[in-house]
């Protein structure tokens, strides 16, 4: 029986790497993203190199197409959701449009998508892996809505994990640190950026286990622990 996976946000970054890894492992794929041309290029590349079946779906997570998704994923085993966006100037202000967009894209749309996935009779579904960010664990004034929406997403994912625990579906949420994707490419950061390929390998390997919340690179768990242990008088002075 063929193995099948769905990757949401497969046109770039960690999502694309996940699609490549799964394709090399022999999975048939459904790849989704907004940029159809980039998806079709990836489809050609993976089909030619690994000779498996790749279906492309132009998909804007902000648009309401969840019923359609539910129909095509009936035989999918693993789902990877890698979408997310951060914006410059995500601090205290009155740009409510950006606020809503960040909340919609990073939390609400993903939550709806997951409900849509779980709402059908998908007996073949074994795992859902959702990318989050260490921003959810280290609140800072420079990305308020991004961090808040990722924190909400993590809470939601872990609550869903509890809700489906009797169905043997692994729900993992992976808080990733600085990663060398387009989001971080032109940022000066205090710690090294992880290779998206390494992040993808880790996420795929963990999809076979019921992990709940995990961090990658792993040292971020220690950093987060230290940050949370800092007294406010120290934390408020941090510039990061």
């Amino acid at each position, binding site marked *: 029986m063929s193995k099948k996976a769905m990757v949401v946000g497969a046109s*770039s970054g960690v999502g694309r790497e996940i699609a490549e890894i799964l394709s090399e492992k022999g999975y048939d794929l459904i790849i989704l993203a907004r940029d159809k*041309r980039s998806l079709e290029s990836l489809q050609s590349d993976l089909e030619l190199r690994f000779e498996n079946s790749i279906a492309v779906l132009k998909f804007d997570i902000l648009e309401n197409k969840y019923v359609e998704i539910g129909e095509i994923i009936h035989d999918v085993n693993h789902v990877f959701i890698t979408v997310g966006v951060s914006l410059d100037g995500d601090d205290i202000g009155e740009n409510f449009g950006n606020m809503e967009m960040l909340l919609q894209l990073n939390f609400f749309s993903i939550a709806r998508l997951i409900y849509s996935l779980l709402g059908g009779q998908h007996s073949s579904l074994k795992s859902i892996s959702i990318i989050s960010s260490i921003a959810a664990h280290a609140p800072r004034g420079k990305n308020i809505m991004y961090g808040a929406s990722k924190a909400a997403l993590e809470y939601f994912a872990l609550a869903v994990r509890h809700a489906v625990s009797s169905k043997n579906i692994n729900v993992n949420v992976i808080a990733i640190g600085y990663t060398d994707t387009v989001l971080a*490419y*032109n940022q000066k950061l205090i710690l090294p950026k992880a290779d998206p390929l390494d992040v993808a390998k880790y996420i795929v390997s963990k999809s076979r286990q019921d992990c709940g919340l995990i961090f990658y690179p792993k040292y971020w768990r220690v950093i987060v622990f230290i940050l949370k242990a800092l007294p406010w008088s120290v934390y408020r002075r941090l510039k990061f």
Partner: protein
Amino acid sequence: MTRKRCTFDQTIKRSQQVERPEKYSHLFKIMDSEGEFIAQGAGLSYSPASMNNGVAIDFRKFDRILDFDSKKGLIRCEAGINLWKLLDFVTQKGWMVKVLPGYPSITVGGCVAFNVHGKSQYHSGNFGESITQLTLYHPAYGEVECSRGNDREVLDLTIGGMGFTGVILDVTLQLEPLKGNTIEISKHRVDNLSFAVELLKSYSSVYDSVYSWHDLMQTGETFGRGFIFGELYRNADISSNIRLGNNIAADRNNIPINIFNLKGAKLINEIYLTKELKFGKMKKTLPVMKGAFPIKGQEIYYYLYGKNGFREYQFIVAFDKVEEMFLHIKKYINKRKQPIGLASLKLFKGSQSYLNFAEDGVCLALDVPNIDISEHFFNFLDELCIATGSIMNLSKDSRLSCGTVQTVYREYDLFKRDLLKYDNQKRFNSVLRENLHL
């Protein structure tokens, strides 16, 4: 944000704004803005080809194979694909890329932009000859598909056009059947540089590729002693499980001091020659993926030039001028005590068009440390090229001036005219273009 960039020879270092799009929508959004652009592949050019005052677009995420015709041996791929990925795919299908430069992280876009050559230029020509079609993007024209039968002028301007006609989105290549899963490399001793040319000529009909290595730190009759290498494709029972590993970068951290001073260069050449004679096999067989990229695994060589880097000069001299040229070079090196880290010969065939590095003759490549006397040596080589009607490789020398290039390349003015006719706004610009006044 700007990044520190340097040429592969490390003689030019500067800050550069770089974008690295991963999706077409992002790429087109970047290029909708004002200002000048230049595409960047592996960033391994010896010349400042992907440096400018605008934005360099790192194309390496556009590295997908778009189409493959296994019967005709045609492959269409995005321009950011590196030669390793491309070769890994086509060799498994029984095909081979006709022209391969020496390093696996070089991108197809880079090969097009400098119309590069490989070890078998005499047999296979330059990279551009295997291109059947390519797709360009220029903000003023949108996407342009050009081939031998469609927009031929744009194709000709783009092959060897140093990225000035736009960003290359994808390239279609005519492959050749793979003759064997291994490359058998034979080594032949040669006593001096002059004999090497005759040997290269005679071996060129025996081998698929011939090239040489020479010790120019000798005086007298042994000046240029060394080896001729001949390569043949063979089928052999050999493991082909080769991994790419880490690649060298232009902004590498060389050792603090230059090892290739006069004594060091003499010693290293002597050690290499002795090692190859006493311990090296006269014949060895390598998997295609390893044999195709001889520099891979030998990168330490570049680190030995120290923090000031090195310089390379590569020229093609006509067969009837070889003796005269080599004699002048020998006299200069012996008299001026010029250290030479590496010298290598290849045979070339072709004819000049625009600024492409192709001509009938012998190609000599020289690596020297980036020290004061090397600048003088390269100026001397410029004069020698002008005197003998030789052409130099624009992608190898970060120092070349417009005057020299204009003198030796007879189609310089034609190239400049056609380029400005295509785009007089110079939307795709680089320091190299500024240096050459194009």
